[in-house]
């Protein structure tokens, strides 16, 4: 017997036959397909009990109420909170994508300290004592004013704690970023005296005259504005939009009137002229006029004749007249200042001029009108305990009125007078014009502390980063602002334990003060931030706890309003786009792209059109009529006095000939591939121009040249 080919054949055949009539084949075929249905690398979300938490979103000045759906305590969805007095259900895309910020790739996960250009993780204790030591030195040297602090806003108890800290420490150099609220406050202060701010009753107004305000492009409290704009049909209200381009707001408006960029103030003043000439201003309210009303009248008649302004603005004289008259004759007219989101570089002259229209028609503190009200201060901080050092420091002159004034000053001086800088929830090294100059100024400040949730451009240049819990991980009072008619304070509650080793900014400030000891720890006697909040917001605490918010002012302010025209009567100069080029470059606000803190979430970026971002490149809008020699979608080099950038062009019939529109909020340079590294930061192309009246950058646009690249 000899083993040959046939034997092996038998072996093989036998094996095959044996397997064939066993379950192996059938079972494996089925199981293999089931395996593909349950690939171990495809996540399976655990199921559990569904619960809902109410809170408030503080991603933007909108302050919408949110409801967070949770599964066994794990947040899975953010939605607008029904019956919340700001947004009444509904939410914007950034709020809905809020959960993505919890696990954002650029989250700062632990306190960091910079040791020669590299960040190393340190414990909270080390980080805090490090900061306290540097601050302590300033007080020992009797130079507390060498500390400066930049916060995103001056509203709410966290900003309040920083203010409290600066006062107790002894430095007047507390600055806030230029957001819409700050501009409205400036305008209100200029015309109605300090301590005032403005709100607009858009839900009832029947004639809204918007000077570039992007009502549905992110202006004010976005969701509230969306509702107001969308609800126009029912209460047949009109929206007239003056703007150099067909923004979403202009597209949704009843009438879009293109206006040359940077001439909005002149347009408003010309309209004031028309109202005064035609005696269309409201006599009763006019009783409150003082401070050079006559001079103002004379000035506008002389300096802003309709014909001349028509040439300047590109708006036909007849349209100016008609619109002004229609505005005056409307039952509940409101004029809105603040181009785009109304933050960043704006112009006090423009805000004042536009608001003057409101004053002239006298639809002030009435239903469907403009609310001029005291800053609703629901917070009652105890007076800080100050020692001699602190008093001396507070007596010292304030270094600057705005961040850009400050950085300009530092860049001029050989050595920075400031020794320590604290930045809270702001990204000046990205979101202000000419951020590179701000970075260089910051480099000259020996020690910078950044209270931030994300490793953004500003965090990267600082020496210590204190990681802050996001709005979903901590408690905070969130007051409505940014032109919202009502006055609501919401309570943001932690819906999830901090994902990383982060703390509430309030706690961080208190702990720093404690570490400094002396009068500072006396001024900060609270156990922790929550205890502090409960104490300083005692007046509304019950409401906050019971319903998650408190309504401060209902329905609208009653106190009489006086109006002072002195500022405008002097006819301050209008800041025009600087430079010698043929085009005017203006920044565009896009609802899907955030321009301050934090940067957009992956979901938000995903909604952005491929006519704004394509791969790593961004598009700029240009009217085909003035795009000779260029081709749609082609690459161009955009040149301004401040610099140049390589972008692609998007032929767009919705933008004025001669104007180039460039979206704000792109060109981030930090470690987050979902948002960073896409496009160019338009701020890099614009140099700040400080407006005398406000001491703040008012360079909204800039002259630009464009050539094929």
């Amino acid at each position, binding site marked *: 017997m000899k083993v040959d080919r046939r034997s092996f054949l038998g072996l093989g055949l036998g094996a095959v036959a044996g397997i064939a009539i066993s379950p192996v084949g059938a079972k494996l*075929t089925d199981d*293999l*397909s089931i*395996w*593909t*249905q349950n690939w171990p690398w495809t996540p399976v979300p655990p199921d559990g009990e569904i619960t809902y938490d109410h809170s408030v979103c503080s991603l933007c000045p909108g302050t919408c109420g949110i409801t967070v759906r949770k599964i066994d305590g794990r947040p899975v969805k953010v939605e607008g909170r029904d019956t919340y007095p700001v947004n009444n259900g509904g939410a914007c895309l950034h709020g809905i994508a809020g959960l993505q910020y919890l696990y954002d790739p650029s989250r700062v996960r632990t306190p960091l300290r910079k040791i020669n250009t590299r960040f190393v993780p340190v414990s909270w204790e080390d980080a805090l004592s490090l900061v306290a030591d540097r601050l302590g030195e300033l007080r020992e040297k009797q130079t507390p004013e060498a500390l400066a602090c930049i916060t995103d806003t001056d509203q709410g108890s966290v900003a309040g704690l920083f203010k409290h800290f600066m006062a107790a420490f002894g430095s007047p150099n507390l600055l806030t970023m230029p957001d819409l609220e700050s501009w409205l406050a400036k305008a209100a202060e200029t015309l109605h005296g300090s301590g005032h701010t403005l709100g607009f009753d858009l839900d009832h107004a029947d004639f809204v005259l918007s000077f570039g305000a992007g009502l549905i492009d992110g202006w004010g409290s976005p969701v509230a504005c969306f509702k107001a704009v969308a609800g126009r049909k029912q209460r047949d209200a009109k929206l007239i939009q003056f703007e150099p381009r067909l923004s979403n707001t202009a597209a949704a408006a009843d009438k879009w009137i293109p206006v040359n960029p940077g001439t909005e103030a002149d347009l408003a003043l010309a309209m004031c002229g028309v109202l005064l000439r035609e005696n269309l201003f409201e006599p009763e309210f006019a009783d409150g006029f003082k401070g050079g009303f006559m001079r103002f009248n004379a000035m506008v008649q002389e300096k802003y004749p309709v014909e001349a302004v028509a040439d300047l603005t590109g708006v036909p004289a007849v349209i100016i007249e008609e619109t002004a008259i229609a505005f005056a004759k409307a039952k509940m007219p409101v004029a809105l200042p603040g181009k785009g989101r109304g933050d960043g570089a704006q112009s006090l002259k423009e805000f004042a001029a536009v608001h003057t229209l409101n004053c002239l028609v006298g639809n002030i503190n009435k239903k469907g009108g403009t609310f001029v009200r005291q800053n609703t201060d629901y917070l009652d901080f105890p007076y800080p305990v100050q020692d001699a050092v602190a008093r001396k420091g507070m007596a010292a002159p304030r270094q600057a009125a705005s961040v850009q004034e400050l950085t300009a000053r530092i860049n001029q001086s050989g050595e920075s007078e400031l020794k320590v800088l604290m930045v809270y929830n702001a990204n000046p090294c990205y979101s202000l014009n000419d951020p590179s100059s701000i970075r260089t100024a910051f480099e000259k400040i020996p020690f910078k502390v950044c209270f931030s949730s994300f490793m953004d451009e500003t965090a990267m240049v600082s020496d210590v980063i204190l990681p802050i819990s996001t709005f979903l991980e901590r408690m905070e009072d969130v007051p409505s602002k940014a032109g919202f008619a009502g006055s609501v304070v919401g309570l943001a509650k932690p819906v999830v334990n901090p994902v990383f080793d982060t703390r509430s900014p309030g706690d961080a400030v208190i702990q720093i003060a404690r570490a400094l000891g002396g009068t500072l720890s006396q001024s900060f006697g609270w156990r922790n931030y929550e205890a502090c909040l409960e104490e300083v917001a005692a007046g509304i605490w019950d409401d906050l706890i019971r319903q998650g918010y408190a309504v401060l002012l209902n329905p609208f302010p009653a106190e009489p309003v006086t109006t002072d025209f002195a500022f405008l009567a002097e006819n301050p100069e209008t800041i025009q786009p600087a430079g010698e080029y043929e085009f005017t470059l203006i920044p565009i606000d896009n609802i899907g792209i955030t321009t301050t803190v934090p940067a957009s979430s992956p979901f938000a970026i995903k909604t952005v059109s491929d006519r704004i971002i394509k791969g790593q490149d961004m598009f700029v809008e240009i009217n085909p009529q003035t795009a000779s020699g260029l081709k749609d979608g082609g690459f161009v080099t955009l040149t301004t006095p401040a610099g140049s950038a390589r972008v692609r062009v998007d032929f767009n019939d919705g933008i004025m000939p001669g104007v180039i529109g460039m979206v704000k909020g792109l060109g981030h340079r930090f470690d987050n591939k979902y948002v960073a590294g896409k496009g160019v930061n338009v701020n890099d192309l614009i140099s700040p121009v400080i407006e005398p009246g406000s001491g703040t950058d008012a360079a909204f646009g800039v002259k630009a040249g464009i050539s094929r690249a």
Partner: protein
Amino acid sequence: MDAALIPEGVKRCSFPKFMLGIAIVGAVLLWGVYAMLLCWFKGLNQTNMNDYYGFALWIWADLAVIAIGGGAFFTGLLKYIFKIDELKNIINFAVIIGFICYSSALLILAIDIGQPLRGWFIFWHANVHSMLTEVAFCLSCYFAVLTIEFIPNILENRQLNKVPFFHHLAHNMHGTMAIFAATGAFLSFFHQGSLGGVAGVLYGRPFAFREGLLIWPWTFFLFTWSAAAFGPCFTLLVTRITEAVAGKKLVKDNVVHLLAKISGWMIVTYIIAKIIDTIYWATVTAPGLGFKMSHFYTNNGFYGYWILIAEIIVCGVIPGLLLINKTTRENPTLRLVAITLGVIGVCLNRWVMVLQVVAVPVMPFDTWALYIPSWQEVATTILPVAYGIILIAVTYRYLPVFPQEVELNQPTAQES
């Protein structure tokens, strides 16, 4: 070296030379296999397909190879059912080509689907309303038939044939071949048609949509007819190429002329039907949905009117006429031109019915979508070509594929 395997009485190139050729084509094959593995393990992100181009190069390749593989069922039909006996001299080769085409089609489908391991769902959870289901069933059944038709030819290999069992098997299978040919023809009629139906039933895509008979849109019949018409062209083309490579005549002219003539008449009748269909679609169907014909063609170079003219006139009418006319048909060069144009024509038709369908914007605010295949797609599409060449080379070398070869290549006096 492998002399023992080579059929008696025929000349073949030396084994090393043969292996060299195989190695060259084999390299291409391996390239394709590599691309295939990439697609299987990394997923279809390896392709340039996207949500607009859900069907692209691969589906085209499928439809094309099945169309040109139609020579097998049609020749079989003529030989075994209509008893046109001369065709026995080319039927083996037609079957081999068919076998190659259909096995390639199945392979490409296996790469094209996003979840290959679930591929069997199409049979297990079949949706009888779907043309694709019909395709899948008929395709696999007909492939089985082709295999059966191929087996006897394999068994005629000199060594295998020595085994009495195989010998008799081959003999008996030849006897029963008529049944299989009939089944094959029947199955082919359906799946060739269903492939036409795949496009024709898309009532959401006005470019593809056609009215029809009962559940079958006109494209159903057009596809079957065109496969029968152009399939033989491909059979003849490959035969011609094989002859060129082998450097000798393999099939007698009368056989070639006959097949060419039949093909010619089929093409002419088909193209008439196609022209009628196109006119009806352009003037009745599409306008009824609000679309002018000009909507479906663009000047972007990919989908211009040229494609329509190329398909119908240049690669339809012309080859048809060349093949029905005796003088042009029997002129080798013109015949070669005709069959080549024919093959291009049917491929072009399948291309249009797959890619232009998805390229054309349907929503008024939508835009034309363009697509360039990735190298992985190209490689996996060339893979079957390489595999086909190798299979033909091997079968030609070791099997008595061409019954007339010996007779046509008698050694002359000087040689003996």
